[in-house]
């Protein structure tokens, strides 16, 4: 048995054994924990991993519950068909809501989730066909062939099997091409888009998944309770779901269960204890929860599960996540243009930030099989030009051609697809992810399997191919010993090299490198220069921004010098070194 399956196996054993030790009351409570954990699991994916906060999940739970309640009582439809209808309806509604709200950034999105959370809640309470505030009673029990699931104990197995399957699916998803795209959302949309990740689609995917797990939880809830009313689907409950995920550890799949367990147990105890203590009855546990949530966010923002992990690491250290990579042949490569072909042509590109001209009528070109260096003092506009070329920050005027095609109106993602790849001046790696996974993001466009295939593990061949390719590129840049280290644990210079490996993983014909040698030691610089020479020999074109003159002059075939957003000089390294204008710009004038 592989070691990383140990938690799952332990978990299954505990779930199987629990009914023999728990009273009926405890079993009922455990059922609710399972139902809540299902919603919290969706939130872990949405908020903890995708970085999209939602206070409105309770509304989707309500949707799942009301669809089956209504259809099974009024029209006598089988609950199993209702499940499909409910999921379909949730998918549709979540798609519409997501389409409208997911483009909002920062705190506007969570505010919007509050808004639709409230409106769906009022809808449940105000539709006469849904029984208004009294709700719907007499919902039939679930039936599997002839087995009627009536008792809490029977339901226990159903709920926890569903939860286990959902957890496995989410885990599989996270460990895949689609999952890496989702995890990249939090680390920066710019980077993900530059490697061809369709970030709006990735956001929509996690939003839909979170809505679906909530709807399944609602469906189970309706048939467990055999009665629904609007109260459990209010905004307060939505907040509580988020609270559970935060308490448990919003970044961990297991955090969902830990959070649901702790919050539900605590709530139960507090509801027993507080009215006696305070001398009156009411929902006073929310005082406690509110204060606890503030304290957790102040002191342990990563939640319970990360505390448990830290403890586990102390007991059994050195258990880093390693596994042998499945052997796989090389991925198909694009055909590279012949040496000397003009790859990139920048003509009179201008970029303004308000009144400041960051780039003014900049022109340059890069041919296949050459290293073109772009140099200039700090603030000369080199990175801005890079961002214009790779469409991270489109140009305001001028023309950019890549492989004889205008690209100045294309998105970063479309440009990546055409074979241009870049690194960033300020390293944009996902610090928590391993070097291997980071580099595999670069190969995003060389795979095509999506969320469903990943969740059901039908993507293994492709996944092996992508990871093997990533490992090959890491080996090529000489970082094999760091394959499974978190990217954030590497020295900054090495992180820059990881960025190059990631860019190479996309099989580019043009590489844009933004200060790749910064922070490297002498030997490492030599190795990097060696690597770039090798790439040049393979007919890849390289556009390089760099400050280290020795490095540039020893490597570049041609050099362009920028100052104040404009081109100062262009020529062979030798010419540039003797150009009086350049000397003046760098040394402040030759007297």
């Amino acid at each position: 048995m592989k070691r990383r399956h140990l938690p799952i196996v332990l978990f299954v054993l505990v779930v199987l054994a629990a009914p023999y030790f728990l009273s009926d009351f405890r079993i009922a409570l455990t059922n609710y924990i399972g139902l809540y954990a299902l919603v919290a699991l969706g939130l872990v994916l949405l908020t903890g991993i995708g970085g999209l906060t939602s206070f409105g999940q309770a509304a989707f739970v309500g949707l799942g519950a009301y669809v089956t309640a209504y259809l099974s009582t009024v029209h006598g439809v089988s609950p199993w068909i209702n499940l499909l209808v409910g999921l379909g309806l949730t998918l549709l509604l979540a798609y519409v809501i997501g389409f409208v709200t997911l483009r909002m950034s920062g705190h506007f999105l969570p505010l919007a989730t509050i808004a639709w959370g409230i409106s769906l809640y009022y809808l449940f309470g105000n539709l006469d066909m849904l029984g208004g505030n009294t709700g719907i009673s007499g919902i039939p029990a679930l039936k599997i062939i002839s087995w009627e699931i009536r008792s809490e104990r029977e339901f226990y197995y159903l709920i926890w099997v569903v939860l286990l399957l959902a957890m496995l699916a989410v885990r599989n998803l996270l460990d895949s091409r689609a999952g890496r795209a989702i995890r990249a959302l939090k680390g920066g949309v710019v980077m993900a888009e530059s490697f061809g990740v369709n970030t709006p689609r990735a956001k929509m995917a996690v939003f839909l998944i979170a809505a679906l797990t909530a709807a399944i939880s609602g469906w189970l809830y309706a048939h467990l309770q055999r009665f629904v009313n609007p109260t459990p689907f209010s905004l307060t409950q939505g907040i509580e779901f988020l609270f559970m995920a935060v308490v448990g550890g919003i970044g961990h799949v297991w955090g969902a269960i830990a959070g649901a367990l702790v919050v539900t147990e605590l709530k139960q105890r507090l509801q027993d204890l507080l009215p006696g203590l305070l001398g009156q009855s009411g929902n006073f546990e929310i005082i406690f929860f509110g204060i606890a949530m503030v304290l957790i966010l102040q002191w342990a923002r990563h939640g319970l599960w990360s505390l448990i992990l830290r403890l586990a690491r102390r007991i059994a250290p050195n258990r880093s996540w390693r596994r042998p990579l499945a052997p796989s042949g090389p991925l198909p490569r694009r055909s590279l243009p012949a040496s000397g072909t003009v790859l990139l042509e920048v003509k009179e590109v201008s970029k303004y930030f308000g009144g400041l001209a960051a780039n003014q009528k900049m022109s340059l070109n890069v041919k296949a099989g050459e290293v073109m260096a772009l140099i200039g003092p700090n603030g000369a506009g080199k990175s801005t030009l890079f961002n214009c070329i790779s469409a991270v920050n489109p140009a305001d005027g001028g023309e950019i051609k890549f492989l004889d095609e205008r690209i100045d109106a294309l998105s970063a993602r479309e440009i990546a697809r055409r074979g241009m790849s870049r690194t960033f001046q300020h390293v944009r790696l996902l610090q928590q992810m391993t070097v291997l996974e980071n580099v595999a993001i670069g190969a995003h466009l060389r795979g095509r399997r999506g969320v469903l295939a990943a969740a059901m593990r039908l993507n293994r061949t492709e996944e092996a191919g992508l990871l093997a390719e990533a490992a090959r590129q890491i080996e090529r840049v000489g970082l094999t010993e760091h394959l499974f280290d978190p990217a954030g644990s590497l020295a900054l210079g090495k992180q820059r090299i990881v960025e190059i490996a990631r860019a190479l993983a996309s099989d580019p014909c043009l590489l844009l490198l933004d200060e790749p040698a910064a922070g490297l030691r002498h030997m490492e610089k030599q190795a990097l220069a060696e690597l770039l020479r090798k790439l040049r020999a393979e007919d890849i074109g390289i556009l390089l921004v760099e400050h280290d003159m020795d490095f540039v002059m020893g490597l570049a075939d041609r050099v362009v010098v920028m100052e104040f957003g404009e081109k100062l000089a262009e020529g062979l390294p030798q010419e540039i070194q003797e150009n009086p204008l350049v000397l003046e710009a760098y040394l402040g004038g030759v007297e």
Partner: protein
Amino acid sequence: MDFQVFLLLGQDGVTNGAIYALLALALVLVFTVTRVIFIPQGEFIAFGALTLAALQAGKFPGTVWLLLAAGSAVAVLDGIVLLRERRFSRLPPLILANVGFPLACAALLWLVPMSNLPLWALASFSMLLVVPLGPMVYRIAFQPLASASTLVLLIVAVAVHLALIGLGLLMFGAEGWRTPAFTETNFEIAGAPLQGQTLLVILASAVLIVALYFFFERTIYGKAPDGDFGPHGRQAVLYPGCRDWCFFRHPGRAHYDHLLRFRFLDGPQGICRRHHWRSGLVSRCGIGRLAGRIARVLFLLLGERFQRGYCFHPHSSRPALAFSGFAAH
């Protein structure tokens, strides 16, 4: 709907709108300075009104205990900082302000029979009890996270909202109370009665909004919120190009760099362009845009009044409406 009903409902809508506009202004101010979307705002309204009602009914308002508890927490938090920095001379004023004041209020309540006092005195006293809770809540819940993302601050705001709702239930119970109007004067306009209280509400809101506008737009003090936010507050003197701005008369004291960024964007030079991503966010909620927002809130509430008055809808959708008025840009 005849003209009289129209006038009645319109009056009601404008009154509510005036109150909501004031709330919207408060939210904008809190957000521009702290980046906190202050969801617990509603609890402060409820606490203020319920404290007044309790005072009138001759009951002991629970807000006093809340003030004492929150004040003690602030005294402990800040006291630790002061002790650590060995600034002992500042301890007595800290304790006096945060613990002494609530205790004095409690003593006053015991000694003076409140229900006989005039309404304005009771209203002022309830404000004394509720208003200090604002800075205290900021100190306890938000200040330790002052550098966290807007998202984290939003989640904290929601958590504080939950806690305060629970505390409100504990202090005042779930029943409704009724307080008398400030004035019983009534007018008649085009056959529809116009209550003096309505005029007072509109007048008070207008005066406060105008006063706040002048305070923040026309005074040095308002432009450089001069708050000592402790050792963790970030220094505002970040942009050497902005020397001429009045903030720098208080170097090291003006910690509200986010407000500053927002202001700079209004300035003639694009010196803060590199912070555009953030200041743009803030400026969207800028005070300058407030007029539009107030109009929107008024419009929504008027609409809601008419809709409710017309079909007598059983369930209030007001929270959602007020929300959309706030969130829409």
